[in-house]
């Protein structure tokens, strides 16, 4: 059963009861140990790979060297034949035959190293994928546990502080009301500010004699006198 299915079954099956774990702690520990083991194997496989690759390079260099030697000695044999020194040519040919045997051995070793390198590389890749997959699964289990424990802590906190989670609609209404109040306050503040600035503008206009100044006693008396006459 996949870990996903396991978690789903556990949650649906009521293992989500507060305080009860989805997967028992022991199983989680074993799983963590398995991941560590897999990671150790991976490290070892990588070390093996490095050493085999070194051997592969060395064998490859050796094969090249022998091939060069063979080519060189074939040249010598041709030169000996050109001098009609059959005996010398035969000696060189014998040496070449020995070299060819050695080449075959080295080539076989090289092939075998190459196969091993490919195999190890494949193994490392596979192990890396597996470790990543294990880690993802462990993370799922741990997250489920974490959320359950967190929920349990939150619930305990709420019941102990006597405050309870409100009905969603009521909460929204309250928040909206608060927002409205805040907006109203902002508007009122803006209004006040604009009134203040209106007042100061009026005062400036009066001072500049652009709008009429406040009425004073002498201007009133002047007006009455004007009416009488």
């Amino acid at each position, binding site marked *: 059963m996949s870990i996903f299915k396991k978690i789903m079954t556990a949650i649906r099956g009521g293992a*989500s009861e*507060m305080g009860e774990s989805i997967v028992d702690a022991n199983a989680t520990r074993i799983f963590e140990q398995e991941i560590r083991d897999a990671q150790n194997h991976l490290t070892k496989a990588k070390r093996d790979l490095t050493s085999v690759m070194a051997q592969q390079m060395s064998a490859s260099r050796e094969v090249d060297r022998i091939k060069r030697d063979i080519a060189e000695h074939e040249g010598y044999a041709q030169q000996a034949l050109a001098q009609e020194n059959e005996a010398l040519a035969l000696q060189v040919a014998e040496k070449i035959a020995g070299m060819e045997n050695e080449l075959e051995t080295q080539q076989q070793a090289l092939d075998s190293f190459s196969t091993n390198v490919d195999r190890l590389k494949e193994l490392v890749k596979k192990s890396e994928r597996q470790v990543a997959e294990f880690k993802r699964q462990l*993370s799922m289990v*741990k*997250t489920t546990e*974490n*959320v*359950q*424990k*967190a*929920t*349990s*802590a*939150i619930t*305990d*906190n709420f019941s102990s502080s006597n405050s309870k*989670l*409100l*009905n*969603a*609609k*009521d*909460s*929204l209404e*309250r*928040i909206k009301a*608060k*927002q409205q109040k*805040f907006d109203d306050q902002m508007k009122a503040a803006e209004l006040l500010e604009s009134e203040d600035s209106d007042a100061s503008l009026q005062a400036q206009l009066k001072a500049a004699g652009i709008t009429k100044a406040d009425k004073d006693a002498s201007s009133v008396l002047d007006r009455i006198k004007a009416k009488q006459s």
Partner: protein
Amino acid sequence: MNIHSIAAHLNELADNTSTGMVFDCQPISGEVDVLQITIQGREELPVFLSVSDDQVICITYLWGEQEIIKEKRVAMLEAMLEMSIPMPLSAFSKIGDKYAIFGALSINSSFADIEHELAVLSNNALEVIDDMSEFLI
């Protein structure tokens, strides 16, 4: 990254938030440390934050099973499922008998990422309750 460093950061922000929200943090102790984050003006809908090995999870509870109008339950579930992708950064969940929205962040997230997450989550929660109120009692 743990709840205490997050709390210290959010409390320090005070009025200088880039999100325009003022956060107040209160740790809740338990088997797992949880940070209760209230946002000024939205005290009724706190965000709960917990930190696990590889992620930071922020949860806001929406409503309980008993708040749903019975005959509209399936329609509500479908609406939630459909809204899960369009809703920025948050997804729906159900914990026990409570519906919730949550966001999960990498443990390597910056404080600014977390702040952003909290603001988006809170906005989403308000909007979701508003838009889904037709399904609720």
